[in-house]
């Protein structure tokens, strides 16, 4: 026989003497070996103690699966102490995934009919914890039978087992409905509590059950009344309130039963009002009940007076000194902010104050709630508070706060200048925490605000001088310096004190960014491209730029090296195109996150060094940073290796400065004759065609005004037959000057994969001499090459 086994306490004492993890492991391994040999001996006398020891070792994290079968043997033993340990072992070590769990089904069944209530209780407990769906199906009727016994100890355990059964096998809900209802008639609070839990579970799983249980609402109301009126009862007293657990559970059930049901909600109004006003709030238990009452009032069809009461209770919670109360008040306000927005707005001041709370959980909740409460009216003050918060908020909340501010600013920005200011502030404060897509978004925002170029670039320049560690800020700043460097040089800026920035200063900054160890490769790319752009915008230091660029031709980073070499080539072989390639970027359209052939809208930008009569179409790739752009342009002209650019571009490039069109292969410009689409009352519209690829056609329309007076507000709309897709780009303007002294041009892109014969209906409207003229015409004279 194995040496007499160690008692559980002895083993625990032994393990605690171990000074190191290795020692502990050694002790446990030795003990496990002893236990294993004892199991093999099939000696029943020490089995229960051995399994208890095994469970202890399992808690410490050591493997205990070899004890599973022993648990089964223990459960089958007639002794209570054996069964106790056996069932505990089953609950801790077994779960429905193991086959061994099925073997205890029979034992559980027998034990449910045992004459000792404690054995019955053990069996029910085990079923309720780890019963699989097969086991539940087998034993469902047994559980139902036990629900009807008179023993309240068994009843309440049976009720919770039934909850588990219903979770695993929802079809059995029907089986338990009558028994559950009758449980509510008892006096024992434990039974009542379990019964309410069971009914709640059934209603949650099955809406039909909800209908059936609506009739118990009067009973529930009565029980609640008794609880509140009963006065002091030492049995169930917690914090001066009689059985708050039961009260809370019943309120939860009432919430489910009263949802979307006016009649039921009506029946509950009184009791809810009573609970809300009479509950003592000095202790946690009272507040728990009040909170649950508020949730119930908000969820059912309660009358408006009651709802106001509920929101006021929450408002009081917000001012409570107990942090827990403040936390849950904010959780529920967050849920309510969608439905009762105005009510929550009233407490905005308190909520914003909670941002300054010392507790991190409360701060997080306050942050979520603040964002939910921002609207067009309070945006300025709220963002001010949020920016202050961002200054010293904990690190884990920074990125959420930053993205929240961006979203709110985008939706409700009162002015562009404010918007840019806010974003700059966020970038300088929490720059390293913002998400990646903020950089292109911000760039897009900046390009859209042409009137603030000078202001923006000055601010960015100052920010970068102060701190170049925050990558998003540096990237945006580098891009802007490259694009709008001339504003820095001219030193114009309204409020900021006019700082004279020389070309050397700008180049210094960009070089610093390039060389800093804090800059990421992407940032370096931005800086390099900006340097190149500056080479066209400044006059004196082009050599310096050339030198820097050539140095990077041997950079280890492949991306930078490629760029540097391409730029070098631009300097050397294609210098005459450098200006054209690096000119000002067109305004980026909002929402055009992915580059596509037809998605670019172009505005005529008066600041461009070369004025245009034709709109300029340029590929805009926002996703991979705007600076990739120049690389792609170069590719089209055929300079760099075509395999290096990821996207095949299919659209046409028209370069300013003229007739570089012949460089673009595959475009037959003069092949299709142009037509006059409309000619009436002095207004002529001409169509010039270009085929792009096989099924796409680009129509360049020119509108001219031959009358003696200007035509203003000129708008052209076009419609095509069904199988053709049309895309109208923005016109170059809306004023047709008189006597053909200028024209308005617009591009129309047609996609005609089915090669249907092309027809178009045009609707023109303009105002001349104060009166509006509208006209509709059909264009049928498209040359066949346009659609064949």
């Amino acid at each position: 026989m194995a040496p007499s086994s160690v008692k559980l306490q002895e083993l625990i004492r032994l393990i605690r003497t171990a000074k190191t993890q290795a020692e502990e492991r050694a002790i446990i391994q030795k003990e496990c070996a002893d236990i294993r040999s004892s199991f093999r001996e099939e000696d029943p006398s020490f089995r229960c103690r051995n399994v208890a020891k095994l469970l202890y070792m399992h808690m410490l994290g050591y493997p205990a699966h070899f004890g599973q079968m022993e648990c089964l043997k223990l459960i089958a033993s007639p002794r209570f102490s054996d069964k106790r340990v056996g069932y505990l072992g089953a609950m801790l070590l077994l779960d429905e995934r193991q086959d061994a769990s099925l073997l205890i089904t029979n034992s559980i069944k027998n034990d449910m009919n045992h004459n000792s209530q404690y054995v019955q209780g053990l069996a029910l407990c085990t079923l309720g914890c780890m019963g699989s769906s097969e086991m539940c199906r087998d034993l469902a009727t047994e559980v139902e039978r036990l629900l009807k016994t008179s023993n309240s100890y068994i009843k309440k355990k049976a009720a919770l087992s039934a909850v588990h059964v219903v979770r695993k096998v929802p079809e059995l809900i029907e089986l338990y409905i009558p028994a559950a209802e009758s449980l509510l008639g008892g006096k024992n609070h434990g039974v009542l509590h379990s019964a309410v839990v069971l009914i709640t579970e059934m209603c949650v799983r099955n809406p039909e059950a909800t209908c059936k249980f609506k009739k118990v609402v009067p009973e529930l109301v009565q029980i609640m009344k008794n609880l509140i009126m009963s006065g002091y009862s030492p049995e169930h007293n917690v914090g001066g309130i009689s059985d708050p657990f039961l009260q809370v559970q019943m309120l939860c059930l009432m919430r489910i039963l009263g949802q979307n049901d006016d009649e039921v909600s009506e029946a509950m109004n009184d009791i809810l009002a009573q609970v809300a006003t009479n509950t003592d709030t000095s202790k946690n238990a009272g507040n728990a009940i009040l909170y649950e009452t508020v949730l119930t009032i908000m969820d059912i069809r309660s009358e408006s007076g009651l709802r106001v009461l509920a929101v006021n209770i929450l408002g009081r919670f917000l001012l409570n000194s107990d942090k827990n109360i403040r936390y849950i008040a904010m959780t529920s306000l967050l849920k309510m902010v969608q439905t009762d927005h105005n009510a929550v707005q009233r407490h905005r001041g308190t909520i914003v104050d909670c941002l300054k709370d010392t507790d991190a959980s409360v701060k997080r909740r306050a942050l979520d709630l603040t964002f939910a409460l921002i609207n067009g009216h309070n945006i300025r003050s709220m963002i001010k508070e949020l920016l202050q918060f961002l200054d010293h908020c904990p690190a884990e909340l920074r990125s959420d706060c930053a993205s929240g501010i961006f979203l709110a600013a985008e939706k409700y920005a009162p002015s562009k200048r404010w918007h840019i200011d806010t974003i700059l502030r966020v970038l300088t404060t929490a720059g390293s925490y913002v998400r990646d897509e903020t950089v292109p978004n911000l760039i897009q925002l900046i390009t859209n605000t042409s009137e603030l170029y000078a202001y923006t670039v000055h601010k960015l320049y100052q920010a970068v001088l102060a701190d170049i560690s925050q990558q998003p800020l540096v990237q945006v700043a580098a891009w802007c310096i490259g694009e709008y460097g001339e504003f820095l040089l001219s030193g114009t800026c309204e409020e900021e004190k006019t700082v004279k920035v020389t070309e050397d200063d700008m180049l210094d900054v960009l070089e610093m960014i390039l060389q800093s160890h804090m800059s990421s490769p992407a940032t370096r790319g931005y800086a390099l491209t900006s340097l190149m752009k500056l080479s066209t915008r400044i006059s004196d230091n082009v050599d310096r730029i050339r030198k820097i660029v050539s140095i990077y031709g041997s950079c280890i980073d492949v991306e930078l090296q490629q760029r540097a070499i391409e730029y070098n080539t631009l300097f050397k072989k294609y210098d005459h195109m450098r200006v054209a390639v690096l000119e000002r970027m067109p305004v980026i359209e909002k929402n055009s996150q992915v580059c596509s052939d037809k998605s670019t809208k172009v505005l005529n930008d008066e600041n461009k060094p070369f004025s245009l009569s034709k709109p300029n179409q340029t590929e805009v790739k926002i996703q991979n940073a705007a600076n990739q752009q120049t690389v792609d342009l170069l590719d089209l002209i055929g300079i760099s290796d075509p395999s290096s650019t990821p996207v095949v571009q299919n659209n046409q490039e028209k370069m300013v400065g003229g007739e570089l069109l012949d460089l673009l292969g595959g475009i037959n410009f003069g092949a299709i004759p142009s037509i006059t689409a409309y000619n009436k009352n002095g207004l002529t519209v001409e169509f010039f065609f270009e085929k792009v690829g096989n099924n796409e056609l680009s129509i360049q329309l020119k509108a001219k005004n031959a009358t003696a007076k200007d035509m203003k507000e000129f708008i052209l709309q076009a419609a095509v037959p069904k199988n053709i897709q049309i895309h109208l780009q923005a016109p170059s303007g809306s004023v047709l000057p008189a006597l053909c002294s200028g024209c308005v041009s617009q591009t129309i892109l047609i996609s005609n994969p089915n090669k249907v014969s092309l027809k178009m209906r045009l609707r023109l409207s303009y105002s001349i001499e104060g009166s509006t003229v509208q006209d509709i015409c059909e264009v049928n004279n498209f040359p066949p090459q346009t659609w064949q």
Partner: protein
Amino acid sequence: MIKAILVFNNHGKPRLIRFYQYFPEDMQQQIIRETFHLVSKRDDNVCNFLEGGSLIGGSDYKLIYRHYATLYFVFCVDSSESELGILDLIQVFVETLDKCFENVCELDLIFHMDKVHYILQEVVMGGMVLETNMNEIVGQVENQSRLEKSEGGLSGAPARAVSAVKNMNLPEIPRNINIGDINIKVPNLSPFV
């Protein structure tokens, strides 16, 4: 529903672990470590609610904890439970332990881990709250301990000895022994038979 109940000390050593949802063993230990990490960082004057760690289900679950001297009692619950109610439940559980062990301390939990499990079984079953009346719980636990003791096993040896003596069939002892002039009164031994 309560997903898990964890009790560990200030150094993260587990004292009571109960999961009401299946997790493989190594996951269980990882969850214990992660929960300890989250909870031990908290000051004593912040609120008792935390978002659940990523291992245990993330922000769908909340950790509601209370710190008593050297022990953390952590209940991981889902959104259907009332947070303040769970706080009260932890209090009830600890007070029950106090009644059962008489001024409970960490050593009690260490050396009587099985008893603590049995007490917990009377409070929470299958992740749902079973009984909150302290006297009721304590009463039931004591009944069961008595049942266990009466059954035997090595702890029941004294009781078995007594019952064995009771069942012995001793022959009838004469009350009076008369030997001539000597009258010896035999004392009454019936209570021992």
